[in-house]
């Protein structure tokens, strides 16, 4: 400690008593308000360490007298959120899907809930808003349904899936006609006939020949006029919607070696209320029947 505090001649401010190569440091202390705030944070930190988990040690950490954990906090918040939703959820639980569609208030709740569930579980394949994925996953916003577009049919599809591992899943299989069942020429003619159903045939002669093969091989499932059959999941062939493409080449490919989509069952993954809201949401996308 210097016995006499030296003052800077020019400014009159006290010096700290250090000197580096002739440079002396002025004593300019921190502002008092700043210092007090700093002390207050130290006091706060001490209190925090007592009440909240703070000190880590091997294999754990101090718990704090409040017993607070962020995980419990989240659980509480989730519980509170569920309690807040309980009223609406209970109404959805009690109502049949068809009744929900008729009630504007219930419909609003179900569409909200269904939208969230859809984005989490369905949108990866079927696209946000049911836009579908060209060539693999059906559009859900249009009016064409392979396995039925009533709200109950949609609910059933969501519950058990299509060609899934669920024993109650609906399944059907289109034979691979290219593997010897039909000759390439016959397949070509059938494709022409299928195109003619929606007025797109390139050769009426070929389409005429194809009609015979179609009646023998295809009409049982797809219907005589290509009207399809939702019971068997046989798509309508007379409309403008082609899941795997509507060009002749795409149709030939599909007849020769069919691709068939698989939809997982959501029973066990989503509870009944969520599935109900999902079915209503999909139905209300615009194509529900």
């Amino acid at each position, binding site marked *: 400690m210097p016995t006499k505090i030296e003052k800077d001649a020019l400014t009159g401010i006290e010096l700290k008593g250090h000197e580096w190569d002739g440079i002396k440091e002025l004593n300019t202390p921190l502002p008092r308000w700043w210092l007090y705030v700093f002390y207050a944070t130290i006091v706060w930190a001490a209190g925090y360490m007592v009440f909240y988990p703070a000190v880590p040690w091997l294999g754990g950490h101090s718990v704090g007298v409040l017993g607070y954990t962020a995980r419990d906090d989240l659980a509480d918040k989730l519980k509170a959120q569920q309690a807040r939703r309980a009223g609406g959820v209970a109404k959805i639980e009690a109502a049949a899907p068809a009744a929900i569609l008729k009630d*504007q208030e219930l419909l609003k709740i179900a569409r909200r809930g269904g939208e969230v569930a859809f984005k989490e579980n369905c949108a990866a394949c079927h696209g946000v808003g049911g836009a579908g994925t060209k060539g693999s996953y059906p*559009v859900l916003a*249009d009016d*064409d349904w392979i396995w039925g577009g009533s709200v109950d049919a949609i609910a059933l599809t969501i519950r058990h899936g299509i060609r899934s591992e669920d024993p109650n899943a609906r399944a059907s299989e289109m034979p691979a006609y290219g593997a010897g069942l039909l000759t390439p020429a016959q397949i070509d003619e059938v494709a022409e006939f299928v195109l003619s159903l929606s007025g797109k045939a390139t050769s009426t002669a070929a389409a005429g020949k194809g009609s015979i093969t179609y009646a023998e091989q295809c009409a049982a499932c797809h219907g005589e006029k290509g009207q399809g059959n939702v019971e068997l999941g046989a798509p309508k062939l007379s*409309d*403008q919607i082609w899941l795997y493409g509507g060009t002749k080449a795409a149709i030939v490919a599909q007849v020769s070696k069919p691709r068939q989509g698989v939809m997982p069952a959501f029973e066990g993954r989503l509870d009944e209320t969520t599935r109900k809201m999902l079915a209503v949401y999909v139905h*209300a*996308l615009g194509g529900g029947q």
Partner: protein
Amino acid sequence: MSEQVASESAVSRKASRPPEKRESLYADWVKVHPKAVKGPIRRIKWIALVVFLAIYYLVPWLRWDRGPGAPDQAMLLSMDEGRAYILGLEIWAQEIYYLTGLLVLAALGLFFVTSLFGRIWCGYACPQTVWTDLFLAVERFVEGDRNARIRLDQAPLSLAKLAKRGVKHGIWIVIAVLTGGAWVFYFWDAPTIARELLTGDAGTGLYALIFLFTATTYLLAGWAREQVCTYMCPWPRFQSAMFDEDTLIVTYERWRGEPRGSHKAGAGWEGRGDCVDCNQCVAVCPTGIDIRDGSQLECIGCGLCIDACNAVMAKVGRPANLITFDTQRAQDAIAKGRERPRFQLVRLRTAVYLAIMAFVGIAMLIGLATRSPVEMNALHERNPLFVTLSDGSIRNAYTLRVLNKRLEERELVLALEGLPGAVLTLPGHPARPDGRVALRAKPDEVMTLQAFVKAPRDIVRESQEIRLVLRGEKGQVEAERAAPFKGPPGGPSR
């Protein structure tokens, strides 16, 4: 070259000057201890204080019947509902520009009044002034007048000092809590929220809000006081732009005050000014300035120095109003021995402010008179942009929001225009034979609707515009919205 010459001359000037003593430009804050004063201006200030506090505390409790379902508070800015209720006027959140218009009008009104009468807003009506005045009154009541307070500040810490300080801050905090507490009444139904606050049922957010306004009131009116006006408030910095020679300001009549000096009773007044240099004008000033130095930034124009000076002038037997509210023009004229000019109410400046105020006011009135009681928004669904249906036609989806601002139910009809051949459907709302859709809009509500527009493939381009028109009971157009209608790329097929 010239640069060099300049720098050389600067050097020589520097050298010729005596070495300067370096002084800090920093001036520490000196606490102001305004003295109590009596007089007509102080009385006006007391009345202003009571009136403005009464307005602040009572307005949220005024009721205004708006019929069932609507709040009956005359002045309510409901954050929860996004509505501002001002007497018969109901402003929705998206019409916030009406509130902006009101604020613009208030600002122009302030300019107008300032150009006429100087800083009477600062001196009498500003909340900072009103609450500081109130807090100073408390301080004076507890700790005594100016000299007693200066003594108390310098006195060592004692039990008596601690007690006085404690009582003062206690009362300050009570006032601050009441101030902060009253603020929230403007944003929620006052009786309901008052009951909740008293029973402890109100949310923590509300208490936090009250704490915030309590803290700011306590700090600004109790501790910061005149420093708010001098350092924090932007208004004093540019109010001089509204001043001119015809603006009333607090003025010291230098021409008859100087030379100042103390005066013995019985002595003559020849060869000297009327100012007896008693410093009363400085002692009573709430911002601690000397008005005899002329018009200055810190002066809030409250005129308490006028009261103080007039009391002294009466005592020494000289004419009153050595310090007075007067215009620069009048003072200049009198100082030069001319006749006092008439006070100019109508000037280019005041006329311009009035004209702008009238323009804004009329624009707002027209806006309010013609504002639509129904609004509609149409949001085009982008996931997916469009859907191809079985028959090849193209369908777009929209989310419509229909706002009914009236407090009665409306029968509205929605029609699609701009795309002949297209069909509009709204699930849950059956279409009429003419293809339009009837909607029942509940009072004071926002309806969210799902709408589909379907058009044959051969009229659909990649992108076109449709119009959704909402008509009222008599077929009048209430709202109209353009929205895109999207189709597959490549234009109409076949």
